[in-house]
C-alpha cells in the first residue's frame, strides 16, 4: 500500500484500551474507539457512564491510568491540554468574563503567537460562521445563553483543531432552541469539515445529529454504529432500552410453525423470531420490538397476533403511545398516529400484531 493510502486510512482519533480510576470507582473501563476524519461522532450514555471522563481524557484534562490516545497516529496520552490539536466547547461555555467576545476567541490564537492582523481576520471569520459578527465587542454577561453558546463554539473552532469536543452542547437550551441549534451545528460541521465529538445523555440529540454513535454504560462501550443501526439493530438489552422505547420479550427458543419462535412467560403462544435468526433450540434470547412496529386492530388479523386490552393512552401531539395489557400480566407499548389512536380508550379490546422480521434478537 502506498503511504498516501495508508495516511488516508489512518483514523483521526484512536483510543486504545483506556481506563481511568477515581478512587475505588472505575469510571472508564478498557475503552477502545476510533473516529475518522470529518465525522460527527456522538458518545451517548446515562449519567455516570464515563462519557464525560473519556472526553476529558481526550482533551488532556484527565490522564488515563492505562491505555493510549492517538491523534493522526501521534501518541498524545501524556501531552498537556495546551499541546494537543484538540479544542473543547464546555458545557457551561466557560467564557472568560473579563474579556469581550473577540478577546475570548482571540485568546487561543494569541497563545500560538499569531500576529494581530491575522488574529482579527480569523476572529471575524469564525464570528461570521456562527452568525455573531456584530457581537465582537460585547461581554459574556451581556449575551443570552444561546449567544454564549455560539461564542463558545466559535472559540473552539478558531484554532482549526483536528478535533472539536462538545460537552452536552444542547443541554442548557430550551426545547425549541435545541432543535434549531442541532441543525445549525450539523451545518457548521459540514461546512468547516472539522471532526466533532459530541457527548450527550439525550438519545434524541445523538440520533438526530451524529454520523456514528458509541453507546456507553458503566465505563464501557456497548455498541458503535450509525444512528439507524443503533436504533433498528440494538446489540444488547441496555441499548434497546436506553435508546428509544422498546418492548422486550425474554424467553427460550423453540421450533414450530416452520420458524424459530420464542416461548415467553405470560404468552400462551410462542412469538415468531426474525427469519435470519441462527440460534440453537433451547437457547435463551430476548426479542426487542419497537412500539411503532405494532399494529392494533379490533378484529383478529391473519398471522401472528396477541389479544390485549388498552390500559392507558399518552398523547404527544402528532403521535400517541398506547399501553396495553396482554397475556398474563404483560405490558406492551404501541406507538400510533394520534388520529388512529383516537378511537381507542381505556379497556378497549384489541389485537396487537407485527411481522416476525420487525423484531431484533438480542442475546446479551
Amino acid at each position, binding site marked *: 500500500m502506498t503511504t498516501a493510502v495508508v495516511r488516508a486510512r489512518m483514523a483521526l482519533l484512536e483510543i486504545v484500551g483506556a481506563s481511568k480510576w477515581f478512587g475505588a470507582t472505575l469510571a472508564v473501563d478498557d475503552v477502545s474507539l476510533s473516529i475518522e476524519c470529518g465525522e460527527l461522532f456522538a458518545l451517548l450514555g446515562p449519567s455516570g457512564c464515563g462519557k464525560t471522563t473519556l472526553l476529558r481524557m481526550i482533551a*488532556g*484534562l484527565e490522564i488515563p491510568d492505562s491505555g493510549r490516545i492517538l491523534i493522526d497516529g501521534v501518541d498524545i496520552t501524556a501531552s*498537556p*491540554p*495546551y499541546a494537543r490539536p484538540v479544542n473543547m466547547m464546555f458545557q457551561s461555555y466557560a467564557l472568560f468574563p473579563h474579556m469581550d467576545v473577540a478577546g475570548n476567541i482571540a485568546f487561543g490564537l494569541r497563545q500560538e503567537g499569531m500576529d494581530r492582523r491575522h488574529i482579527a481576520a480569523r476572529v471575524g471569520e469564525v464570528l461570521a460562521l456562527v452568525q455573531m459578527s456584530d457581537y465582537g465587542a460585547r461581554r459574556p454577561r451581556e449575551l443570552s445563553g444561546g449567544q454564549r453558546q455560539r461564542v463558545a463554539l466559535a472559540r473552539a473552532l478558531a484554532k482549526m483543531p483536528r478535533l472539536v469536543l462538545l460537552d452536552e452542547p444542547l443541554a442548557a437550551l430550551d426545547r425549541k432552541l435545541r432543535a434549531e441549534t442541532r441543525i445549525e451545528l450539523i451545518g457548521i460541521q459540514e461546512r468547516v469539515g472539522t471532526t466533532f465529538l459530541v457527548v450527550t445523555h439525550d438519545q434524541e440529540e445523538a440520533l438526530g445529529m451524529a454520523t456514528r454513535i458509541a453507546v456507553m454504560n458503566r465505563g464501557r462501550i456497548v455498541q458503535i454504529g450509525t444512528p439507524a443501526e443503533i436504533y433498528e439493530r440494538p446489540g444488547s438489552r441496555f441499548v434497546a432500552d436506553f435508546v428509544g422505547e422498546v418492548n422486550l420479550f425474554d424467553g427460550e427458543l423453540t421450533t414450530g410453525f416452520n420458524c424459530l419462535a420464542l416461548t415467553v412467560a405470560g404468552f400462551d403462544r410462542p412469538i415468531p423470531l426474525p427469519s435470519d435468526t441462527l440460534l440453537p433450540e433451547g437457547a435463551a434470547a430476548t426479542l426487542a420490538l419497537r412500539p411503532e412496529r405494532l399494529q392494533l386492530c379490533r378484529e383478529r388479523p391473519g398471522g401472528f397476533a396477541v389479544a390485549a386490552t388498552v390500559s392507558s393512552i399518552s398523547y404527544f401531539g402528532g403521535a400517541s403511545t398506547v399501553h396495553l395489557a396482554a397475556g398474563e400480566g404483560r405490558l406492551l407499548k404501541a406507538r400510533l398516529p394520534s388520529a388512529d389512536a383516537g378511537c381507542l380508550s381505556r379497556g378497549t379490546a384489541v389485537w396487537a400484531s407485527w411481522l416476525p422480521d420487525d423484531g431484533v434478537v438480542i442475546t446479551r
Partner: protein
Amino acid sequence: MIGIGRLGRLTLIGLPFAWLGLFFLVPLLIVLKISLAQSAIGIPPYTSLFFDDGSGLKIQVSLANFVLLVHDDLYLRAYLGALGNAALATALCLLFGYPIAHAIARAPKAWRHLLLFLVMLPFWTSFLIRVYAWIAILKPNGLLNQLLIATGLITAPLPLLYNAFSVELGLVYSYLPFMILPLYGSLSALDECLIEAAADLGARPVRAFLAVTLPLSLPGIAAGSLLVLIPAVGEFVIPDLLGGADTLMIGKVLWDEFFNNRDWPVASAVAVVLVAALAIPILFAQKFLEQERTA
C-alpha cells in the same frame, strides 16, 4: 492545577512558608528560649543559651522567670484580669452583635453589602484614634457627662473613665466587628425556609428563634467568640489608655516588663505562658475558621 509542575508548586508554597517560618514560627521559639534565660546588662540584655566554660559547649537554662510568675501574684492577677475582661467583652459583643448581625442578614439584599461595609468601615479607621476618642467622651467633664448633667439625669459627673467600665466599653467597641462578621456569615447562610417551616408547624417567633436560628448559628457564634476572646486577652492599648491603676491586664504587664523594666526574659516568660494558655482556643479557632470556609 494541571501542569503547574514541581518547581511552580515549590515556589508557590515555599515562598510564603519560608517567610512565615522565619518571621512567625522561629520568633516564637526564640521567645521560648529567652524565657529560659536570665536578665543581664548589655546588648542583648539577656544571658545566652550556649556558653563555653572551657570544657565544651553547654546549655544554661533557668526557670527563674517562670518561678517568678508563679510566686508574684501580680502576674496571676493580670492573667485572670485579662481573661475576665476579655470574657465579659466577648459576652457583651455577642449580646450586642447578634441583633445587629441578624438585622443585616434579614435586610433587603441590596442593603446588605452597604450595611456590612458600614460595619467594617470603623474597623479600617485607626483603632488607636477611635479608642482615644472615647477619652474625650468619658472624661468627668467629657461629652457624655455633660449631656447627662444638661438633661438633669445626674447632678455630679459619673466616673466613667479609667476604670473597668471604660475598659469594657473600649474592648466591646473595638472588637464588635469581629463578632458581627462571622455571625452574619452564619445567619445569612441560614435558609429562610427553615424558619417558615417552624412557623408552619406552630412555633411562635421566639420559639422558632431558640429552636432553629440559634442552634444553626452556633458555628458563627463560636468563630466570632474566639476571634474576640483570643486577641482581647492580650490587649494592650485599651487598658493602657482607658484603664486605671487597678486595671490589671496581662498585655499591659508584658509591655511594662519589656519597655519599663527592661526585663526581656520575664517578658518572654509572660508571653510563653500566655501563648500556652491560648493554645487550645487558637486551635479551636483554626478548626472553626476552616469549617466556616468549607461549609
